[in-house]
C-alpha cells in the first residue's frame, strides 16, 4: 500500500495588494481588476489568488462597482 507520497511544490502565494502597497482598490483601475477576473469573469477566489482577506474585500467591492458601470462584465458566455 505504501505508495510514495506525492510531493507538491507550490509557490507561496502572496497578496498582490500587500506586496505592491495598493491600499485603495479603485473601480476605475481596470488593469488591476482584470487580473482578478478570469475568463468567465467570476471574481477570483482568495484561495487561488492569495489575496489577503482585507484586500479581497476591497477588491470585491471594486469589481462589483466596475460591473455596475459596465466596465467589467458580470459573466461572459
Amino acid at each position, binding site marked *: *500500500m*505504501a*505508495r510514495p*507520497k*506525492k510531493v*507538491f511544490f*507550490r509557490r*507561496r*502565494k*502572496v*497578496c498582490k495588494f*500587500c*506586496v505592491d*502597497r495598493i*491600499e*485603495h482598490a479603485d*473601480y*476605475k483601475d481596470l488593469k488591476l481588476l482584470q487580473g482578478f477576473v*478570469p*475568463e*468567465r469573469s467570476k471574481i*477570483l477566489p482568495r*484561495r*487561488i489568488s*492569495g489575496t*489577503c482577506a482585507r484586500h479581497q474585500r476591497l477588491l470585491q467591492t471594486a469589481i462589483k*462597482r466596475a*460591473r*455596475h*458601470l*459596465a*466596465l*467589467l*462584465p*458580470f459573466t461572459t458566455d
Partner: protein
Amino acid sequence: MRTYELCFVADPRLSDEDVVAMTEDYKTLLTSKGVEITKEESWGRRKLAYPIKKLTEGKYVLIFFSSEGGAQGLADVERRLLQNDKVLRFLTVRTDEDLKRAARVVPRRNPNPETEAGDRGDRGDRDDRGDRGDRGDRGDRDDRGGRGDRGGRGGYAGRED
C-alpha cells in the same frame, strides 16, 4: 471634508455637446448647494462590458467633488440621474476614507528597512497568517484505498469551463 466621485454613463447617441451640457447642469446643481467641484473627467465613448438597453457603447463622465459635512444636493442630482433616460448607469462613491487609508500606507517598500524601524507602516501585511495550506490538495489520501488517483483536483485550471 468629504470627497466624492460621481460617474455616469450617458447614451452614446447624445452629442458631445449634449453630454457636456448635462454635466454642467449637474455641476451647477451641486455647486448651488455649496459643493466644490474639484475635478472632471470625460472618457468619451467607450465600449460597455455588456449591453444596456440594447446599446453597446456609452459615454463616461466623472465628476470629483468635495464638501463640508455631507453633500447636499447630491440626492437631487441622483434623482435627476435616475429619471434621465439618457443616463444608462451612474455611481457615486465617497472616497475620503479610502484615500485617507491609502495615504497612511507607505507607498513603496522602503529600500532600507533598518533605518525606518520605528515606522509603523508595515503593519499592513500580516501575510504570515495566511499560510493555512491550500485546500486544493485533498486528493492525496492513501488510506481511503481503492479510490486511487484522484489527485490533482486542486488549482483552478480544471474548473474554468
